């Protein structure tokens, strides 16, 4: 029996459970599949519930209100109440709608949203599906949601829904580009599409394996891609593009309620609406999970080796704690943004993707390349870092100015005499 490793506890338990089924390989495979999928399906709806609660409480606080507080302590059971109510609501399918597509749309949105979660490493040795081409798979499956949103918009036979669906297609297809290109830099640096390798590359293994606790901690942090110029810029681009990809404010045009009522969701009621709602949040988790993996060091975080353990890779705090902490932090930023910003207009949205994010992402790839080949001093990128940062800052400023042009500016007002 290996010593208990808090970091790997779940993995060890799983292996221990599976060891009983050694003689039945087929059953073992099936159980293994179940053991890796069921938690996903159980945990993320729970996260979704917590997030909706956080969002309502957070928005309320931003707006100087209290927020739900009648359901359980601090209103924590509010999502449960919402869920129960949604389950009981009548399900309306408009008479003129395309019934099949109307029914399928929430399903088509939900399935890939959960599927893409399986390529994210939640911890060391804890990845539901270790695919060599994880990042590609993520983007490929993730873009299916565009189809679902359009299906919803089209099948509802409602003009607002149709406009919402059209907007969704334009928006999601456009933002896919900066999203992928900002991820490309990371892939270039790692040389792999495997998400586990991407996380491993962000850890300084010799520091982690040293005996100094401070170094162990630092080794889990210092290597994150976000601390490099290309990583920082890439992270920002990725984050902004992901906001658009999952239709969050300020890019929530497909369901812009002040313009086109509720966009593609206009005709959805009851449980189908709840499914849409949930899938959008699960996609948000997924994409935040990916940006955590790509730029924020995945499951690594300030951590030390447990004193009783000899395993150089053992950690005191399970990695998935850090993973979820980062993911929720990003969700909170999204809520914060939602509480602050108004919405973009549809042509500004496209302009922003094609004229601003895309050139910036391409620039970022070059900077990444330069950073990779720039000479280092004792492994420290003394040339690559400042120059890369400067180049990224300058290109941000230039592209920003080019986009803004003389059209919008602060104005000076005068008074009548």
């Amino acid at each position, binding site marked *: 029996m290996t010593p208990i490793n808090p970091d790997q506890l779940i993995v060890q338990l799983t292996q221990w459970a599976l060891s009983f089924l050694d003689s039945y390989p087929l059953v073992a495979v099936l159980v293994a599949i179940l053991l890796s999928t069921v938690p996903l399906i159980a945990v993320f709806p729970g996260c979704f519930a917590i997030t909706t609660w956080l969002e309502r409480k957070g928005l309320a606080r931003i707006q100087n209100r209290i927020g739900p507080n009648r359901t359980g302590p601090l209103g924590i059971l509010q999502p449960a109440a919402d869920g129960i109510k949604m389950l009981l609501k009548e399900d309306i399918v408009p008479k003129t709608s395309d019934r099949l597509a109307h029914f399928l749309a929430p399903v088509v949105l939900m399935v890939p949203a959960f599927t893409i979660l399986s390529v994210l490493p939640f911890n060391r040795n804890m990845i539901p599906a270790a695919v060599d081409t994880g990042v590609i798979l993520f983007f490929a499956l993730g873009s299916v949601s565009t189809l679902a949103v359009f299906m919803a918009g089209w099948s509802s036979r409602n003009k607002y829904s149709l406009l919402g669906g059209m907007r969704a297609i334009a928006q999601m297809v456009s933002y896919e580009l900066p999203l992928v290109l900002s991820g490309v830099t990371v892939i270039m640096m790692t040389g792999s599409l495997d998400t586990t390798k991407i996380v491993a590359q962000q850890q300084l293994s010799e520091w982690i394996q040293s005996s100094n606790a401070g170094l162990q901690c630092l080794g889990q942090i210092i290597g994150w891609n976000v601390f490099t110029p290309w990583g920082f810029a890439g992270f920002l681009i990725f984050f902004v593009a992901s906001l658009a990809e999952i239709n969050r404010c300020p890019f929530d045009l497909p369901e812009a309620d002040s*313009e086109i009522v509720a966009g593609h969701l206009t005709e959805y009621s009851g449980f189908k609406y709840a499914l849409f709602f949930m899938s959008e949040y699960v996609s948000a988790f997924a994409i935040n999970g990916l940006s955590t993996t790509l730029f924020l060091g995945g499951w690594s975080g300030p951590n030390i080796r447990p004193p009783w353990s000899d395993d150089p890779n053992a950690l005191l705090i399970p990695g998935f704690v850090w993973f979820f902490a980062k993911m929720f932090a990003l969700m909170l930023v999204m809520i914060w943004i939602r509480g*602050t910003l*108004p919405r973009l207009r549809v*042509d*500004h949205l496209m302009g922003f993707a094609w004229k601003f994010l895309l050139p910036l992402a391409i620039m970022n790839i070059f900077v990444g390349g330069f950073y990779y080949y720039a000479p280092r001093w004792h492994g420290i990128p003394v040339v690559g870092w400042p120059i890369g940062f400067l180049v990224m800052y300058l290109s941000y400023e230039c592209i920003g100015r080019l986009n803004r042009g003389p059209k919008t500016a602060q104005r000076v007002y005068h008074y*009548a005499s």
Partner: protein
Amino acid sequence: MSTETIAPREYQIYSGDDLRTNVLEISMGPQHPSTHGVFRMDVSLDGETVVKLKPVFGYLHRNHEKIAETTSYLGSMPYTDRLDYFCSMTNNWAYALAVEKMAGLAVPERAEYIRVIMAELTRLQNHASLVGFLTNDLGASGTPLLYAIREREHILDLFEWASGARMMCNYMRFGGVRNDLPSGWLAQCKKVVDDFPAFMDEFETLLTGNEIILSRCQNVGVLPRDLAINASITGPCLRASGVDYDLRKVDKYGIYDRFDFKVPLGSVGDCYDRFMIRLLEMRESVKILKQALATIPEGPVNDSKARNFRPKPAEAYGRIEGPKGELGFYLVSDGTPKPHRYHVRPPSFINLTVLEDMCLGQKIADAVIVLGSIDIVLGEVDR
């Protein structure tokens, strides 16, 4: 000046051989999140571009004028509260002004000051909430609106303290106001007025520099100066187009000539100008309020003779600078206790004349904020 009316422009739909598009007609409203009530816009869209926009009114036509013609002069006063339900105080004042003009009533000094204070407080809360509603139309999830309403509550408390009701104050009377201010009111009002600039600073930091608001409001819904005058646009919309016409300066009604304030003017006439003019007007209102609160005299607040007046056959048109524009009341008396004709000149109704001109060729999202920047209240539009 041209000799003909400035007619609405026609928007040319692109109809080359290579690309055939159909116009999508949608009816926004009467229940629509952006229409500020029950207003409808029949919009034709080419893609997302507005090619035709016809406003449809009357969903809140509750026969204010007809009811007023069957009620006594005093009985119409509470109904004026419900015209523009954000600004019951200024509505009261405009109506009282028209009746006073017709019946030749005088207003005591202190009442004039109270009227100015109430009107400027009304302007503050109206403009603050309008800016909030505008950002809601822009797609903010209510935060600026709720900040504005948080601040508005302080002003509503003052109204409630003086008149008994938060919104429907029914406070002004012919020849004065209904009752004197309760003790302590002026001190509290001073406190609210002194706190207000801090809120405005917060508001301006939150909104005026925001790149999204800049890009969405600037050069959107431009209203040219000549068209603004020809289409009888009034209020902040007119001044955003650069026309210096503020009834507080032009008519000097009440005692506005005693206060030192300025009239901010826009230069482009777009949504951003309309939005900024309101913010700047709030600063000026705070200035007026400070002066009025410092100099308010003691004395009676209403004319006891005005209580049982019976008008002679006459007609009068009284108008004031409401927060939304020129609010006028046209009264015709035939000597009976009821008005023969009672007509309201609602600013937001007439300001909608140019809605189509401002929206043509813009995106549908712009139509929403153009409507928001005009600042309409349906109680007043449809009456």
